[in-house]
């Protein structure tokens, strides 16, 4: 239990508070005692002065009368008058020997108990001594009150501290245990587990939220990894089966072995292409390339691509032209951006049909740099547009044309790496694939 951080903290705080209660108690005791002493001395001094005054105006007998009168009153001070030889003349303090000035004497009280008494002894002009005193009982009673009060406070602090510490550390302990329990469950394979969130928005709650967001991200990555493995299993088996059949056919018919091997090599190359494309997409999605971003001139990039592909387009009886609306530059990876544009152009060349006109545009939408490839081919049904960016997704009518179904997945991955948005927009007739980059800062 003492390995719990919160309990250790609670114990420490309790000790600090208890100690401060003790220190505060001592200070209070000391100062109240001093204040009370001063008060008592002032009262004694005043009475003594009054009696001296009585002596001056009424003589010795006046003082004796006054002492008798006052000594009997309830709650009053104690008085005493002594002759020049110390003989008691009046008052309860008459027999008490005390030097001139302030002193502390022991005195037997009315009940017969010894009590400490504070006495001011004043010498009268004719040798008599006047004693005025007050017992310390009141001060002692106050000491008791203060000490009891602070004692109770001390006990309260310790009890509350210990109980609170237990309660608090129990709560923190339970919440931390929930987090580590979730981690343990995930280690054991239950990837759907999340840390419970209270909604109190305290630091532990925020930790839980961050933890859950991290888990969501990991789950998404796992999901995409699973998707890739499924895709590979599903879409690589078909060409691999074809390859196998070809090799078997070659073995069975020795005269056509050369042909079979050549076909097999072609199959193998296309499988390797698919594999390379998958790895590349995974690499791009990993995001590590972002570190090497540099300013890229979109117009120059579009020109290179348009130039490279226009002879091929012409050979297909298609036309490929370049439009540079406004020069724009983005921070990015030139190689990946080129490949992205190449994939879009190749998609258009392959799917827009003969006689198609294809336009590569580099420019801006508002302040956002933009690259687009527009064709006047048959377009894509709305329901299928988004799915085209999934790995291996192909339109039914394209199943027979060559292609891995990874071209647009790579486009989507490159766009995402650059924080750009890809959309397929109907161009009536045809399709515009547009990549819009974030506005320059």
């Amino acid at each position, binding site marked *: 239990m003492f390995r719990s951080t919160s309990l250790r903290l609670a114990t420490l705080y309790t000790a600090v508070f208890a100690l401060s209660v003790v220190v505060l108690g001592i200070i209070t005791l000391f100062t109240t005692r001093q204040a009370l002493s001063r008060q008592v001395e002032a009262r004694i001094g005043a009475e003594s002065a009054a009696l001296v005054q009585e002596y001056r105006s009424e003589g010795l007998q006046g003082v004796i009368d006054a002492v008798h009168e006052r000594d009997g009153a309830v709650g009053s001070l104690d008085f005493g008058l002594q002759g020049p030889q110390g003989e008691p003349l009046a008052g309860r303090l008459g027999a008490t020997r005390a030097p001139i000035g302030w002193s502390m004497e022991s005195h037997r009280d009315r009940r017969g108990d010894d009590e400490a008494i504070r006495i001011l002894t004043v010498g009268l002009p004719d040798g008599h001594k006047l004693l005025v005193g007050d017992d310390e009982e009141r001060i002692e009673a106050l000491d008791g009150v203060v000490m009891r009060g602070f004692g109770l406070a001390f006990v309260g602090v310790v009890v509350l501290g210990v109980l609170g510490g237990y309660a608090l550390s129990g709560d923190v302990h339970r919440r931390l245990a929930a987090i580590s329990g979730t981690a343990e469950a995930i280690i054991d394979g239950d990837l759907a587990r999340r840390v419970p969130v209270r909604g109190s928005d305290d630091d532990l709650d925020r930790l839980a939220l961050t933890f859950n967001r991290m888990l969501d991200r990991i789950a998404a990555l796992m999901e995409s990894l699973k998707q890739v493995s499924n895709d590979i299993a599903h879409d690589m088996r078909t060409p691999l089966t074809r390859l196998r059949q070809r090799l078997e056919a070659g073995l069975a018919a020795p005269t056509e072995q050369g042909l079979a091997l050549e076909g097999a090599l072609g199959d193998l190359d296309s499988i390797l292409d698919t594999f390379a494309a998958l*790895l590349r997409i995974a690499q791009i999605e990993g995001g590590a390339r972002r570190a090497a971003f540099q300013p890229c001139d979109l117009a120059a990039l579009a020109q*290179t691509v348009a130039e490279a592909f226009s002879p091929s387009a012409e050979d297909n009886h298609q036309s490929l032209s370049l439009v540079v609306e406004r020069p724009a530059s983005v921070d990015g990876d030139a190689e990946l951006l080129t490949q992205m544009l190449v994939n879009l152009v190749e998609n258009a060349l392959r799917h827009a049909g003969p006689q198609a006109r294809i336009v590569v545009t580099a420019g801006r939408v508002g302040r956002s740099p933009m690259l687009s490839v527009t064709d006047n081919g048959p377009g894509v049904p709305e329901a299928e547009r988004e799915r085209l960016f999934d790995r291996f997704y192909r339109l039914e009518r394209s199943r027979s044309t060559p292609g891995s179904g990874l071209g647009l997945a790579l486009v989507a991955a490159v766009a995402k790496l650059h924080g750009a948005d890809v959309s397929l927009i109907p161009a009536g007739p045809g399709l515009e694939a547009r990549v819009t980059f974030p506005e320059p800062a």
Partner: protein
Amino acid sequence: MKLLIVEDDREAAGYLKRALNEAGHAVDWAAAGRDGLLLAAGETYDVIILDRMLPEVDGLAILRTIRTSGVKTPVLLLTALGGIDDRVEGLEAGADDYLVKPFAFAELQARVNALARRPPTQDLRVELVVADLKLDLLKRTVSRAGRRIELQPREFQLLEYLLRHAGRVVTRTMLLESVWDFHFDPKTNIVETHMSRLRGKVDRGHGCELIHTVRGAGYVLREPD
């Protein structure tokens, strides 16, 4: 040529060695990085073919050591890693070219031939000449048998590359990389279409062709026999 293969996979190395021997090269083979390092430093080779992933010592570490010790032999790095960063890393470590496994043997052969040390004066020439074909690097003009040929900028680059590697096979991938700077494989036959246009301009109407297609490998520009 005298070649060194540093490759830990016995079967792959054996196959490469046999094929390169058949192509007329003398081939040494080191299976371990350290042996490769010793051979590379001690002998004189025309080209070193270095596998990037070796047990014990990393191929890149060997490459850096070779370069630090002043060996300038061209190095072709073979790798199973196809990432963009891997290529850059390999070239920065001192490789002259980079080939991703698996590859066609023709591709390897063409690249080895392209890497073999050329006469030192070659790159300082201002004019590239094969038979009656002349390419002026300063004026950026091309003529054949005295007649001027108008080329698009990309076609000019293509012809320049062929002329610089005259007599040696260049592959489609080599052209994509050096002429277009495309380090990926487009599905469209852009090399073929550009090449056919270039050949139309350079060879059409002339008695003998200079640019030839090498089936299953690529192209070669060479003196007529």
